[in-house]
């Protein structure tokens, strides 16, 4: 009899735990930034996007602009961008063939569609199946996350200038953290939704 009671209790406990955990997962998937901090059950692996870990990529691409993490765009986008570096947003960003191949491989192997990091998954979810965005700022997820920021704050600021200038406001962008609590808009201050 005792064993049966123990089994039932253990079973009930397991069930409750799984419901709570499931609840966490649900909240986590919701776009609620404030909830994110409360759930320590998620490893850092599930936070934001993977950090840049290719020295050549950081050097070559980062010498002109923020070295956007590969997990911010899908594979198709990277292939398209890397296939026309001579006309890279009106700039010439040509690389020699070996380097071009190496960096394309790095980008495509770590692209948003292959990543299980939080924001990579959200970027993919918001994307249409046939969408091949050439700019991160064009993705629906990005647009939605920034739709409350008045355009003028960005455009008129000498420090920001463009939404593609991540590091101007996201103080932890280099560490692949785009959390709103780390946002500090030059000439404006902290931004809270």
């Amino acid at each position, binding site marked *: 009899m005792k064993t049966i009671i123990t089994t039932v209790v253990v079973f009930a406990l397991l069930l409750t735990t799984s419901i709570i955990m499931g609840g966490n997962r649900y909240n986590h998937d919701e776009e609620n930034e404030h909830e994110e901090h409360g759930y320590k059950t998620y490893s850092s692996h599930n936070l934001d996007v993977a950090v840049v870990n290719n020295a050549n990529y950081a050097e070559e691409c980062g010498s002109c602009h923020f070295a956007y993490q590969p997990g911010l765009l899908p594979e198709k986008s990277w292939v398209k961008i890397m296939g026309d570096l001579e*006309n890279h947003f009106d*700039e010439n960003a040509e690389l020699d063939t070996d380097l071009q191949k190496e960096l394309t491989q790095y980008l495509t192997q770590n692209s948003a569609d292959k990543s299980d990091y939080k924001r990579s998954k959200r970027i993919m979810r918001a994307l249409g199946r046939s969408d091949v965005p050439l700019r991160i700022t064009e993705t629906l997820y990005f647009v939605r996350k920034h739709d409350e920021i008045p355009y003028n704050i960005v455009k008129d600021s000498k420090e920001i200038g463009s939404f593609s200038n991540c590091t101007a406001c996201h103080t932890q962008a280099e560490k692949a953290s785009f959390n709103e609590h780390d946002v500090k808009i030059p000439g404006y201050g902290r931004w809270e939704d």
Partner: protein
Amino acid sequence: MKAYLSIFLFLSANIQANPLDEMFDAYQQSGVRTIDSEQGKSLWNEAFITEKSKDKERSCANCHGSDVTKKGEHLRTGKVIEPMAKSVNAKRYTNTKKIKKWFKRNCKWTLGRECSAQEQADILKYLITQ
């Protein structure tokens, strides 16, 4: 004697490996006879209109500035570009691969074509004597 010889060979190999010497050697081999930093300076500040520039003038100085001992700023992205003058930023002239890469990219963007050996030699001379 053998040891002296190998030290000598080792040193001369290292002297030869100086990236700037390598660059200028290659320019000479391409037929460049006289190198003129004044010519380089005027090319640096010359404005070009290319097929892709949409009637806007482009020059090296657009992004790097006319005073190459100072920092520049990228025309479009606003990113700070460290000074080009060797006297304040010698690190720029330590890797031939990088020198060639930037000449290729930036000449194509600014002039709409690759720079000739003569043009590169003049510009390089100008930058390393500033």
